[in-house]
């Protein structure tokens, strides 16, 4: 037998039963007898939602059954199976509605049967907000009462709404567990057809919350698939009817997890066999992509930003870990979901208890993450937050990063019961909460065994860091498909838009292309948006139609054109956060750069604040541009005007700060050694005449270049 046979068979069986039941009812009551569910404005909600037709009498019900029959096509195609599943569900609704004839109350405590519209409106809000992260439909009897109850409780603890159909209801009752809408465990009914009452909830939610038009079955199914986080747990044995119902669930986007192994056909992400009932929860959540918010971090000390600035002094310290003396490392590793057990925290090596008071130890923690949207580029972004997370622990202090971190745990925290594993708890919870858009699963391994730390540091961490640095070095504007906008500063500089590219970080110096990319992924409606670069106008200037359109949009029309590589033609605007400003120095045919910290005069005859006053505020001032310090050594620095060769003057401090990288770029681009020696500073000149004399003496290349204006 194939899965198709089972679905079709189950469907036919239910259809037959339904037809019989309706005919029987007509015989008993006459075909004008009214049929309805109580307390709903949606007639027979499932049938109404799918077809847009309201059924009010037995006669109409019979006609509706004819419509259902048309869904029951028998080609062995996936769609036929799905539609037969839907048909089975609709038949179930018909059978159920017959139970309510003459205002009967077919369901008794603890079973609910049909749920009123009011309940759906009430449950719908927490469903939309994610306060109810999912809806579990448990069908049949668990292998044992204990297993069944444990499963229900596991969902309940996660805030998931649990609906029960069949044998599980008795099991839960037997265990004395409280049920009801208020505790979010709702027994529907013992017949398998009672499952329709939860389907009815999902479909009415689509009508009420999704504004789906009744009869628009395509949109309906898309809504339940995208927005109703329901799934089915069906216990063995599964008969054909249940399999047919399951097909209906799958059609709505609800995966089915079962422990049945006989005569079953696995469908990835949809029909999943999980023999171990204790793993139903994890399997279901993963299949339906449900993430549980962590509201409480289970550690014996407080966790709050108020502790961020706490410093643990030596005398108050229980133990410390010091990357500058012994092997340490902190690392985020992207793994495949199958390699990770969510929320597993492992400590390899001694715990704090085993360490001597005041001792210096090794530590290396590897936070393994997996997620459909996770990219290796986000690893350093997540990693950089470790400092902040660990510092927020009361009595724990963290500085540094990569393999140079230092951590201290205070005596007080130790006495309160703080352990190494709690660092893992904090990292787990913080990463899951803050990066939930990209991290689906997270596991933490903390090594305190010195040999293991050495291995992790040298064989895992350092090679990873090297690889990342290499990627950063090779990441060029040409090597990526998109740039990002950043409008974080618009609050005080309304028309400013930063275009962040790999070789040009935000002018505040704080937002790199990778940061912007991660920000976009984590907050798709946030300040960083994708800018495509498919329609170049002039590659040398770095002007693109796409970029122009983006800056027009994000500046609300205040800006029309921006070039990425020119300071003379439509230079990028500045908000006022810039680390540095470069400005054209006409007498030497080059540019002067001043950094924010520099208080003196420049050869332009302007100080940094004077230059800032004409460059900031989102205005374009040809000849002047704000930028970050690291941009100075970029190969894209005013590339259109000839690049870094144009730099004729910088404050001494800034020059020293950028010297190594700048000289390297000059070497690569022009073969000039020690380029910074040719660049003036305040000790050489603060006026153009002296500067030109100096440049002439040094043979600065800018003097011989094409005029800038």
């Amino acid at each position: 037998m194939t899965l198709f046979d089972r679905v079709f068979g189950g469907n036919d069986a239910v259809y037959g039963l339904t037809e019989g039941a309706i005919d029987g009812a007509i015989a008993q009551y006459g075909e004008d007898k009214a049929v309805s569910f109580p307390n709903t404005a949606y007639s027979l909600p499932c049938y109404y939602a799918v077809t847009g037709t309201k059924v009010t009498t037995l006669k109409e019900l019979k006609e509706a059954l004819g419509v259902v029959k048309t869904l029951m096509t028998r080609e062995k195609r996936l769609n036929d199976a799905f539609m037969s599943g839907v048909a089975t569900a609709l038949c179930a609704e018909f059978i159920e509605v017959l139970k309510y004839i003459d205002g009967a109350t077919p369901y008794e405590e603890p079973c609910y049967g049909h749920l009123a519209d009011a309940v759906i409106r009430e449950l719908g809000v927490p469903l939309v907000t994610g306060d109810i992260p999912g809806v579990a439909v448990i069908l049949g009897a668990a292998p044992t009462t204990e297993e069944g109850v444990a499963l229900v409780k596991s969902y309940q603890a996660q805030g998931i709404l649990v609906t029960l159909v069949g044998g599980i209801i008795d099991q839960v009752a037997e265990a004395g567990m409280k049920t009801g809408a208020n505790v979010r465990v709702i027994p529907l009914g013992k017949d398998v057809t009672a499952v329709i009452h939860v389907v009815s909830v999902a479909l009415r939610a689509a009508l009420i919350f999704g504004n789906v038009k009744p009869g628009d079955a395509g949109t309906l199914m898309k809504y339940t698939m995208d927005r109703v986080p329901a799934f089915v747990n069906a216990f063995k044995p599964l008969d054909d009817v249940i399999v047919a119902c399951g097909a209906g669930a799958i059609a709505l986007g609800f995966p089915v997890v079962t422990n049945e192994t006989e005569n079953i056909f696995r469908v990835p992400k949809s029909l999943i066999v999980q023999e171990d009932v204790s793993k139903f929860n994890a399997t279901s959540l993963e299949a339906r992509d449900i993430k549980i918010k962590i509201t409480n971090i289970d550690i014996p000390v407080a966790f709050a930003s108020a502790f961020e600035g706490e410093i643990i002094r030596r005398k108050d310290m229980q133990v410390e870990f010091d990357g500058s003396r012994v092997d340490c490392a902190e690392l985020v590793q992207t793994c495949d979901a199958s390699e990770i057990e969510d929320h597993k925290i492992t400590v390899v090596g001694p715990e704090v208890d085993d360490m001597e008071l005041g001792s210096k130890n090794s530590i290396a923690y590897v936070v393994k993450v997996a997620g459909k949207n996770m990219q290796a580029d986000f690893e350093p972004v997540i990693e950089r937050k470790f400092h902040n997370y660990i510092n927020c622990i009361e009595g724990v202090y963290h500085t540094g990063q990569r393999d140079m971190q230092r951590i201290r745990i205070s005596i007080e925290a130790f006495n309160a019961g703080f352990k190494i594993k709690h660092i893992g708890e904090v990292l787990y919870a913080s990463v899951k909460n803050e990066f939930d858009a990209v991290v689906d699963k997270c596991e933490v391994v903390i090594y305190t065994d010195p040999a293991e730390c050495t291995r992790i540091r040298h064989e895992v961490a350092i090679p990873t860091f090297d690889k990342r640095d290499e990627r950063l070095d090779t990441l060029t504007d040409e090597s990526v498909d998109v740039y990002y906008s950043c409008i974080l500063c618009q609050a005080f500089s309304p028309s400013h838009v930063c275009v962040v590219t790999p070789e040009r970080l935000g002018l505040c110096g704080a937002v790199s292309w990778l940061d912007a990319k991660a920000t976009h992924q984590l907050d798709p409606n946030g300040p960083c948006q994708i800018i495509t670069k498919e329609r170049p106008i002039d590659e040398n200037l770095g002007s693109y139609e796409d970029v122009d359109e983006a800056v027009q949009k994000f500046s609300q029309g205040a800006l029309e054109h921006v070039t990425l590589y020119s300071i003379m033609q439509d230079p990028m605007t500045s908000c006022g956060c810039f680390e540095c400003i470069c400005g054209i120095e006409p007498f030497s045919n080059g540019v002067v750069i001043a950094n924010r910290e520099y208080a003196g005069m420049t050869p332009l005859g302007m100080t940094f604040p004077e230059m800032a006053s004409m460059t900031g505020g989102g205005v374009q001032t040809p000849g002047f541009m704000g930028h970050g310090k690291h941009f100075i050594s970029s190969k894209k620095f005013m590339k259109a005007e000839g690049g870094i060769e144009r730099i004729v003057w910088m404050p001494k401090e800034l020059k020293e700060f950028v010297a190594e990288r700048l000289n390297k770029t000059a070497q690569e681009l022009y073969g000039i050694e020690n380029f910074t020696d040719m660049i003036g500073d305040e000790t050489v000149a603060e006026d153009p005449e002296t500067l030109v004399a100096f440049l002439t003496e040094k043979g600065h290349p800018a003097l011989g270049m094409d005029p800038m204006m």
Partner: protein
Amino acid sequence: MPFNQKPQKFNAKINAVTIGSGDKTVTIGGENSFPFYTFDAPTENTAKIGVEISDLGLDEFSEGVKAYYEGATTMAEIAQKAAAIEGADFVALILDGGDPNGANKSIEELIEVVKEVAGAIDCPLVVEGCKNVEKDAELLPKVAEVLQGRNALLLSEKEENYKAIGAAAGLAYNQIVGAESAVDINLAKQLNVVTTQLGVDAKKIVMNIGSAAAGYGYEYVVSTMDRIKGAALGQSDNMLQMPIITPVSAETWAVKEATASEADMPEWGSADERGIDMEVMTAAADLAAGSDAVILRHPESVKTISKLIKALA
């Protein structure tokens, strides 16, 4: 040679949103020009005025306001008197008492107040939460539920609780969603984007872009409104075309200029008069910058702003 008049025509317009049900409704927005620029385009819907009342009764109000409400003891009576003020278009009930750091009234208690007020008046109703995001996330859905059929405007959903309030008010119970952000065009837009992504109809959203009393960082309010209207009309940005409501009184009656007693500041003169002028001037500035509705407290302020709106219509 006469003056060459160049009207500024926009192809886009602000959404017109109707609040209330039955015979008594008000419509705000709908304009396709800057505020009061009747020389560019005729006024679509004049700006509207709401009268603020609070579940805390009259205790926190100034003497002049108390004098007006004299004799009103129940919330129903207070609401009726508020609705009767000359120039009032709607009543805005603020559930201040829900603030966990203040009176911390239970949700049940507050819902009773909402029911009492809703039952006492038939004019359009705006209900504002207690401003605590967690409490409002529980409170406002309940308010939305008991006001089914009233087509009330609920203030405010914020970035932190937009799902609960947006879903309840905008989806489950068919009210108007008031989206509040903190005086920043991008935050305002982002909130509208996520609210509509929730499924809420963009035409059922009214923005509160944040406010301030004159002199208290008011420049941010001006520029945010200027930019929002500019983007909504000039750039046809449909995520900024929601009309703007500004709760003026809550800000203006809290600043020193309005609260300082005459005993403390004898040279400043009548406290009530200071409160009125602070309220009137801030409201007038809000309207000139782009508010489509303002919420005021003092009957004299309501009357004055109503005159101003009529004079400029």
